[in-house]
C-alpha cells in the first residue's frame, strides 16, 4: 500500500504483546512447575491499531491508564518495534519524552547537552549553533560547568527539556510530563509547543488533561485496552472519554492552561 507525500505517521495493524514473567530463578521456576502454576503470562498492550496522520496535524492521544498510550508512543518513537503490523514515519522525530535520559551524573551540564543532543540525532555543528539558545532556555546559570549530579531536580529536568525542544524535527511527540519546573518554565514550554504546532510539524500529544488537548490538538485518538476506541474530532473524543464533566469549559487565560498542564501528572 502506498501513501501520499503528505502522510507523516502510518500505524498499520500494529500489535504489541508483552511477556509477564512471574519467576526468574530456577528455584522459583521449579516450585511453580510442581505446583502447576503458569511460568509466565502475556498480555496484549496494543491490538490491531491502525491510523494515519498527515503532516501538520496535531493529535491528542488519550485513554485511561494502561490503555497502551505509552507503548504506542514508544512504537512511533522507534524505541520498540511492533510484533506484527508496521509503523512508518517521515522525517526526524523529537519530543518531550524521556527528557534527560542518558544524562551522566558525573559530566557537566555542557557535556551532557552535547551528548543528549547527539542521542536525539543532532550533529555537532547543529548543537554548537543552538547551544546558547539551549542554555538560555534551560536557565541553569553558572551550574552549566558543574556535574549534573549536583543539580536540583528542577534544573535537571529543565536541561533535558531544553535540549529536546531545540531539535529540529518533523514529528514532535509529547508525553504528559510537562509538570516539571516552575510556573514561568511551564509557560515557556507551552509557548514553545504552540510554536511547534504552528510551524507545521506533526504533533503527537499524550495527555489526560482535556483542557490542554482542546487547546493544542485538532484530532483525538482514544485508546481503550489496546484498541482504537475513538478517532476523530476533539470535543467528541473528550466526550467519548467522559472527561468532559462540565467543570472545565474552554480555558482562555494563560494561567488556566498552566494549571491544566500542571494537572497532567
Amino acid at each position: 500500500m502506498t501513501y501520499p507525500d503528505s502522510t507523516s505517521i502510518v500505524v498499520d495493524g500494529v500489535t504489541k504483546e508483552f511477556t509477564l514473567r512471574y519467576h526468574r530463578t530456577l528455584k522459583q521456576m521449579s516450585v511453580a512447575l510442581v505446583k502447576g502454576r503458569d511460568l509466565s503470562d502475556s498480555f496484549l498492550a496494543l491490538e490491531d491499531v491502525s491510523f494515519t496522520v498527515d503532516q501538520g496535524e496535531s493529535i491528542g492521544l488519550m485513554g485511561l491508564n494502561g490503555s497502551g498510550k505509552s507503548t504506542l508512543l514508544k512504537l512511533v518513537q522507534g524505541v520498540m518495534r511492533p510484533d506484527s503490523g508496521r509503523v512508518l514515519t517521515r522525517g526526524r522525530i523529537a519530543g518531550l519524552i524521556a527528557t534527560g535520559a542518558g544524562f551522566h551524573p558525573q559530566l557537566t551540564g555542557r557535556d551532557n547537552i552535547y551528548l543528549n543532543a547527539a542521542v536525539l540525532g543532532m550533529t555537532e555543528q547543529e548543537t554548537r549553533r543552538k547551544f546558547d539558545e539551549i542554555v538560555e532556555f534551560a536557565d541553569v546559570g553558572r551550574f552549566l560547568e558543574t556535574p549534573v549530579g549536583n543539580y536540583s531536580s528542577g534544573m535537571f529536568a529543565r536541561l533535558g527539556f531544553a535540549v529536546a525542544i531545540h531539535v529540529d524535527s518533523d514529528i514532535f511527540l509529547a508525553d504528559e510530563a510537562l509538570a516539571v519546573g516552575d510556573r514561568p518554565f511551564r509557560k515557556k514550554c507551552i509557548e514553545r509547543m504552540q510554536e511547534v504546532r504552528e510551524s507545521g510539524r506533526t504533533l503527537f500529544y499524550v495527555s489526560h488533561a482535556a483542557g490542554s488537548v482542546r487547546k493544542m490538538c485538532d484530532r483525538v485518538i482514544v485508546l481503550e485496552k489496546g484498541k482504537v476506541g475513538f478517532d476523530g474530532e476533539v470535543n467528541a473524543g473528550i466526550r467519548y472519554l467522559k472527561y468532559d464533566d462540565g467543570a472545565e469549559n474552554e480555558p482562555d487565560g494563560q494561567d488556566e492552561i498552566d494549571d491544566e498542564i500542571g494537572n497532567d501528572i
Partner: protein
Amino acid sequence: MTDLESRRRVVDAPLANPSPTAGLLEVFRRRYLLKLLVRREVNARYQASALGFLWSYINPLSQLFIFWFMMEKIMGRGTESFAIHIFCGLIVVQFFIETFNAGTRSIVRNKALVRKMAVPREMFPVASMMVSLYHIGPQLIVLVIICLFTGWTPDPVSLLGFLLALGIICLLGTGLALMFSVANVFMRDVGSVVSILSNFVRFGVPMIYPFSMVEERLGSFAGYYLLNPIADAVLLVQQAFWVGTTQDPDATQAEHIPDHLFSYGFLGLGVGFVVLVLGQLVFRRFENRIPERL
C-alpha cells in the same frame, strides 16, 4: 481544514521505520554519537581524581615493575625479559577481557538510554570495545619506552603483526560482547559467567608461560592450541615487542614463536569476523525484546 492547509510543511524524506534497523552499519552512520559515548566513559573514569589521566600510565608501569621484580629477580624464571613477555600478553588479554566484560554489561548499564531512546543498541557493546581500545594507548607508550631502553628496534613486518592482533581482538571481542550483552538482559547470570570465562582466557594464552613450553608438553597438539585466536594475538604482540628485547632475537624467534604465526593470525581474524557476524545475527534476533525486559 484551511487552518491545517496554511501551515502545511513539506517534509523531504521517505516514510521509514522509525526504529534503527541497519545494526552495526547504523552505529558507523552515527559515529559522532559513538565518539561522545566513548568520551563520556573515558572522562567519567578519571573525573574527581587529582592525577586524572596519569593513572592510566601509573597502572601499567606498576604492573611492569611487579612482573620484573617477582618473575625476574625473585623467581628467576629461565625466559629472558620475562616481564615484557607477560606485559605483551597482558595488553591483549586486558583488551579482550575488558571488551567482553564491559560489553556484556553495557546494555543493562545503559538502561536509561536503551529503554527510552531510539539509538541503535549495538552502539553500546561497540562503545565498550572502543573504550578498552583507547586504554591500550598508554600501555603501548609505556611498553615502547621500556623496549627502546632494552635495545629493541622497530620492525615494520612484526608491527603489522601487532595491528593484526588488535584487529583479531576487536572483531572477536565485539562479536562476543554483542551475543552476551543481549543474553545478559534476559538472565543477569550471564555477567557472572563471563567473569569466569575471563579467568580461562588468562591461562589459555602464552602469557605467564612461554609458548615453547606448550610445544614441549603438547608436541604436535600445539597446533590446536594455536587455533585460539587470542593466543595468536598474544604471540603476535610478543613477536612485535618482546622478541626484539632479548639478547639474540633470531634465536628467541626460532625457539618461542611458532612457525606460520601470520597464517594462524589471519585465520584468527577470520574466526573473529565470523563471530562478529554471528553476534550481530543473535543480537538482531533478540533485540526486540530488550526494552521490555530491562
